[in-house]
């Protein structure tokens, strides 16, 4: 659960590897027209940029919950920050993952 103390990511998971893994999960879950490696980790996920909308964000929330045990909450003040970019999302997952 996200309220547990943040755990450090396993050493073998560098930030970049997690970013790529997340990008692949997102591309597969959303049937996106881009390849995972083509997603700019700093580009906005929502709206302009990758062009995701709230239906996609919900889908990503499911993926993140299933794969990493991270439950996203909208009253989490960090939330708008999380979906700012793939990099931000990966950092959040790394800090809160339980599996």
């Amino acid at each position: 659960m996200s309220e547990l103390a943040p755990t450090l990511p396993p050493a073998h998971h560098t930030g970049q590897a997690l970013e790529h893994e997340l990008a692949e999960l997102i591309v597969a879950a959303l049937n996106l027209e881009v390849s995972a490696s083509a997603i700019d980790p700093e580009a906005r996920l929502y709206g302009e940029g990758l062009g995701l909308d709230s239906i996609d964000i919900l889908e990503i929330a499911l993926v993140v919950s299933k794969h990493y045990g991270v439950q996203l909450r909208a009253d989490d003040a960090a939330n708008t920050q999380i979906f700012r970019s793939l990099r931000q999302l990966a950092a959040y997952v790394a800090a809160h993952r339980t599996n």
Partner: protein
Amino acid sequence: MLAYRRGEPLRAGRFLAEAAALAARLPPGRHIINVCADRYRFALGLTAALLSGKVSLLPPSHTPEVVRHLRQFAPDVFCLTDSADCPIELPQVHCDDRPAPAQAWRVPALAPETLVAYVFTSGSTGVPVPHPKTWGRLAGCVRAGAERLGFAPGTALLATVPAQHMYGFESSVLLALLGGGALVAERPFYPADISAALAALPRPRVLVTTPIHLRAVLADQAPLPAVEQLVSATAPLDAALARSAEERFGAPLTEIYGSTETGQIATRRTALERPWTLWPGVSLTLESGRAWARGGHLEQPTPLCDELELLGDGRFHLNGRLADLVNIAGKRSSLAYLTHQLLAIEGVRDGAFFLPHRSAQAEHGVTRLAAAVVAPELTAAQVLAALRRRIDPVFLPRPLLRVGALPRNSTGKLPQEALRALLEPAAREGA
């Protein structure tokens, strides 16, 4: 109790005092676009408008293009918002439900013919189409729904849909106000939010939601808070999902059928039955293959946008949508309207929206649209940015194909099959 915010009760006396105070500071214009995201504030704005003889405009989206048309429809329109950075280009009034001095109150009486709102559909020509809603007919519709649900006064209504669309307007705002229920200010989004918001409410409590949110909530294996009733609308719900929802929440799930034009007119217990049962007094007829509804709260016979199979006894099967219409996550539009918006972009020479084959995306419950465009001087990103100003983002094409020419046949028509063929890998390599 009239409402809850973060589990705290908000009483009717306070609500009416706040609504009166808000009414006193609304500008003189007779038309109001109420975009408050907080459902309590939306209800305040609606009530303040009714107290001061104003009409609410409920458009399908708030893109600059739609707002431009609304300004033409009602030049005196202003916007009521609870957001600090609302992008809508209209005179704005901020709604902050500042506590008003408590005073003696009574529930305002409204004549049945009072015009409450114009709810808009996107239409097919580029101009949103207004559907007037009077108090008497809205109340008739919502009361019939309350009876069908067996809605008990005092029930808390948590909704994952906005108050500004017909379903949320009826099932989360009017049902609470007319049925003696309590609306919930928050609109939870993530599965964990929905569970937590439900658990914070006293029972009896009802979840008003959509197939998309239900699927997300059920994907999580954590135990779910018990509710008295589940309500779903906006898109047909899969029977297996309905059974699973009933099991996990320990409550019956009622699916509602309706439209912006007609309001709610039928329900079914999706886990147990396929046919829909009409509201008492509402009847259907087929005319040249098109289903029309009449009677009950309907002012006039109204054509429906779905393919229905009439079973008699006030029951029917829903067999799909009419060809040109699309429904994505409860937002409706037509391919003709979307294509019109695409063609209106400067630099676009030809173009069309179309439906890809369902197979690839249907497993996710959400089918996205595709579009092909002939616009040699524009990049795909420029076309998408221009579309974003005109149409709701759920309709943005995935993919947007840039092509040299559309596959028009000899009569200039564009068969959907020919458009879909553009999505084939071979065709795309050549593009």
